[in-house]
């Protein structure tokens, strides 16, 4: 039952540890990418493009356009080889745009 041993672990079900400080964005580990073209259509924010890489095994790789990435996590589910990882987007400041406040708790009623 070890999560890491699962054959297709998919998106780790919890946000990355740094989520309280920086917004997570998806990043492709290019060496892992098999250029299967599954992630660009699954992304609803036009945040994944395929780019040419002369030195890459498949000569192409998926690349995340960080400005467009909303960190939704869907691309993790598209990737059969788990090439996506979380990276902190340090351009957006060191506090969540909306921390848990009173109005947020209202939602849990």
């Amino acid at each position, binding site marked *: *039952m*070890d*999560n890491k041993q699962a054959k*297709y672990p*998919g*998106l780790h*079900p*919890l*946000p990355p540890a740094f*989520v309280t400080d920086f*917004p*997570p*964005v998806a990043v492709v580990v290019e060496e892992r990418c098999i250029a299967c073209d*599954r992630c660009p*259509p*699954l992304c*609803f924010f*036009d945040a994944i493009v395929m780019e040419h890489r002369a030195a890459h095994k498949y000569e192409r790789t998926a690349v995340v356009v960080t400005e467009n990435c*909303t*960190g*939704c*996590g*869907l691309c*993790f*589910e*598209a*990737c*059969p080889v788990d090439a996506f990882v979380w990276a902190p987007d340090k351009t957006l400041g060191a506090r*969540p*745009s*909306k921390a848990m*406040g009173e*109005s*947020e708790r*209202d*939602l*849990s*009623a």
Partner: protein
Amino acid sequence: MSLTTSFVGLTLQSPVIVASGPASHDVNQIRLAQEQKAGAVVLKTACSDKYIHMRSWPRPRYKLLDWDKQIAGRSKAFSLYAYEQGYSGTLEDYWQFIRVCKEHASIPIIGSIFADEAHEWQEMAVKVEQSSADAVELDISSPHRPGSLGFETTFVAAIKAVVVAVKIPVLVKLSPGPDVVQQSVSAQECGAKAVTLCNRLRGVDVDIENQRPILHGYFGGIGGPWAKYYTFRHVAEAAQAISIPISGTGGTMSGEDVIKYIMLGATTVQILSVIMINGWESIGRINGEIEQYMKRKGISSLDQIRGKALESITYPDEIIRWSGESKKGPRNTWNDDKIG
């Protein structure tokens, strides 16, 4: 033969509508929907300023449950677990968004709003109308809405306030609760021109390694191909109780599902998960599947099959029954010798 469907006074080129959500939050997606010959697009829901936090989204907020990534797109049973939030811009951005969509799109554009006080609903709906949307959908049933807002206590007043203030058709999107029929009747009495059945169910999944709910830690909306059977029933029941058209939504993956919704009395069908999972081409594929069925059955208009299955709904007292299994057979004899 044509898929043309008349819905709340609008003429749609197809009964397939893009539902409110991540596939209708920016202008270019409207173009994609139009290229695929969607009937209309319901834009992503804008929340009133009181729910400004719903314009910020947690990361991550989607997970596919029961999903094998190795056979992406061929999985027949999965859940899309989503903590989908509201339109991410300000209300001014949203009105502008509607205007730009209307300027460029030839298919009808339906605005979607959420608020709590009736006057806010009204003000927002008027703005949607002024921004030239073709209709407005009142999203009173998001799985992420505050649970303190009830149908009778809040939303009836909201529907009434909106209906008197705008001339465009008002759609009401209901949650898949036990009161769907009663709420549909109320919506009709309040003057809604159509009901959308149903929004997503609210669910939760647990990460047993970390012993806490997944993702952001709170309940998310769940949907997927399995969810349609529940909504089929709601549509069937509501269709017998109300005269306004129904827009069915939930779990639609194929043209067959759309046909089933229509046979159970729906006029249009809203789709979203299938677009997210299988791409925009899904709309064109579904349209094609409906056309193939119509051709095979010699149907020229979907009106010919609308509500067809309802005619054969058989109530418990009408179901033909036979006596049960004989009570004297070997399965009702306790024989100790055969145990172990």
